[in-house]
């Protein structure tokens, strides 16, 4: 299956290991990823604070580029990008006049969005298109001894009107199903669908760190060896800022945070290097030793 691939800013910046690990598993899963060259930032919900139409126009431009590539599905590895794109797409498709108005902004570049694009996250593509049976057949190093807490964050679940959750109710539990397929045991914990704190990291650091500390300690107290997330922004906060959160909370935490494709790659028997597992702020080493992954 061929996708218009949108890696997002963060997999090129703060979390390069997300890009590497996605590329390491994509071919094995049969996902053909063709990058949308020249696509802009989605706005991440921040630009939308300056004006919704501005954000929607930037995203319509990306959709039009994907259409020009002859493709109909945009694959995201950042659930914030995915969520923001899905919201924009929903608004554009709901109102033909609005779509026409936005298209006028794109005309100068010779682009037009005709409304044929579907937005998906890697997690959705794996469950809905690759299939969990196919994934299972690729698992050569099941993560048998690991308990993994899924951290969905916000934009892959909310707002549900933009994400087709009513039509696809299973999407709210895809991470658990992928964790099980990889051989690990999913851990339920209260922070599972809450905010990681990243959007206010630069605005109200104390609150943001309190969120990181709450979620990581709660996952730990529920028995998790690691957390897995579909969002690199959650990763930046839960992993990158975890030492700061731990010192604010006054206790050691040391909770390894995995990107979704890293966990899948571990179960596929890929090496630490291929998955960029050495690039985390909180070491994944104890986890790898427990999972007996090639280190």
């Amino acid at each position, binding site marked *: 299956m061929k996708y218009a691939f949108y890696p997002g*800013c*963060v997999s*090129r*910046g*703060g*979390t*390069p*290991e997300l890009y590497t690990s996605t590329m390491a598993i994509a071919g094995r899963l049969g996902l053909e990823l063709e990058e949308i*060259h*020249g*696509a*802009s*930032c989605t*706005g*991440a*919900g*921040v*630009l*939308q*604070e*300056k*004006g919704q*139409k*501005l954000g929607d*126009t*930037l995203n319509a*431009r990306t959709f039009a580029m994907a259409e020009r590539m002859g493709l109909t599905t945009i694959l995201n590895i950042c659930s914030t990008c995915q969520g923001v794109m899905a919201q924009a797409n929903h608004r554009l498709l709901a109102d033909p006049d609005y779509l026409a108005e936005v298209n006028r*902004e794109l005309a*100068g*570049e010779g682009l037009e969005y005709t409304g044929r694009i579907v937005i998906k996250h890697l997690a959705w593509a794996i469950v809905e298109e690759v299939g969990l049976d196919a994934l299972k057949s690729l698992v050569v190093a099941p993560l048998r001894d690991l308990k993994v807490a899924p951290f969905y964050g*916000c*934009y892959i679940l*909310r*707002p*549900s009107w933009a994400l087709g959750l009513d039509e696809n109710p299973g999407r709210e539990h895809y991470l658990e199903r992928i964790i099980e397929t990889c051989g690990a045991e999913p851990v339920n914990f*209260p922070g599972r669908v*809450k*905010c990681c*704190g990243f*959007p*206010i990291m*630069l*605005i*109200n650091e*104390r*609150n*943001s760190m*309190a*969120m990181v500390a*709450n979620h990581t300690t709660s996952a730990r107290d529920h028995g998790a060896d690691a957390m897995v997330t579909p969002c690199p922004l959650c990763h930046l906060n839960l992993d*990158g*800022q975890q*030492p*700061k959160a731990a010192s604010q909370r006054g206790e050691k935490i040391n909770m390894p945070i995995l990107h979704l494709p890293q966990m899948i790659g571990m179960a596929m028997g890929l090496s630490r290097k291929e998955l*960029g597992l*050495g*690039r*985390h*702020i909180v070491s994944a080493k104890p986890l790898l030793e427990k999972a007996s992954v090639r280190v």
Partner: protein
Amino acid sequence: MQAKIRVQRYDPESSEQPWLQEYDVDAPERYSVLDALVKVREEIDPSLALRCSCRAAICGSCAMRVNDQARLACNTRLSSVVEDGGTVKIEPMGNQRVVKDLVVDLQLFWGKVRAVQPYLQPDAEPGPEEEFIASNESMLNLLTPMGCIMCGACVSDCTALEVDENFLGPAALAKSYRFVADPRDGKSGERLGALNEYGGVWDCARCYMCVEVCPKGVAPMDRIMELRESVMASGAPGTPGSRHVQSFANSVARSGWLDETMLAVDSWGKKNVPKLLSEAPLGIRALRRGKFPMPAFLHHKRPGHRNVRRIFERAEAGKE
């Protein structure tokens, strides 16, 4: 339908800790969660405490958590929320002190609503001879926040309030929007100035939880985002929040994508040397792991960035 209703019980007079109590209820298909709870109270356990009144999603009394999410018990059909084995978990609203069982103390909720001065404060003194006239168009965008029934569901599940009781929270901010955007109100400037402070619009974590749980479509977070836009347009003093938005826009307009390093530097303030120095150890650690910060001068432009720039310029021109 046979349902197992697991209710969080709490009675400060007899126990220090809340506990879950399970009730087996024979519930007709038409039953709402509230119908089932009332049946429990009337037929099984008269000691169960809950609030309810209109049973028609108008009074806002029966907000509670159903399977970890705030809802009105009266407009939630029981059959739509029972999970495997016919069970459903009912708890009191979050972020507020529990008085008994499913009843919470609404003092925090009302205190925040009162703090935003939820009444019209017209400028003209003396007022017009007859009524203030507002056009239909100018009032249309007030309809959504005016639909709020003050049930507290959004406050219950707000992830920012969970870590900071000082945050005004979704219900009060949506109410504030209702007056800021009212053409008859004369205090918008003062209101926006107050919302620019700690605890105001910038402390929202943009998690969409309030949008998801609001039973009346008020979408408080969307109102908060509109307030942020108004705060920035009002010329209120710069805060990390407004600088964050501006820096984000600048880097995307300039290069087509986000400059993460500059976003941090701009948000903290370029002259905030103590903060910049305090972040150096994390920056070095991240660099050693092959992560950012990528120096700002290495932030290259994406192909086609001029087209992105033009979209920004036209958006700016459109506002003027």
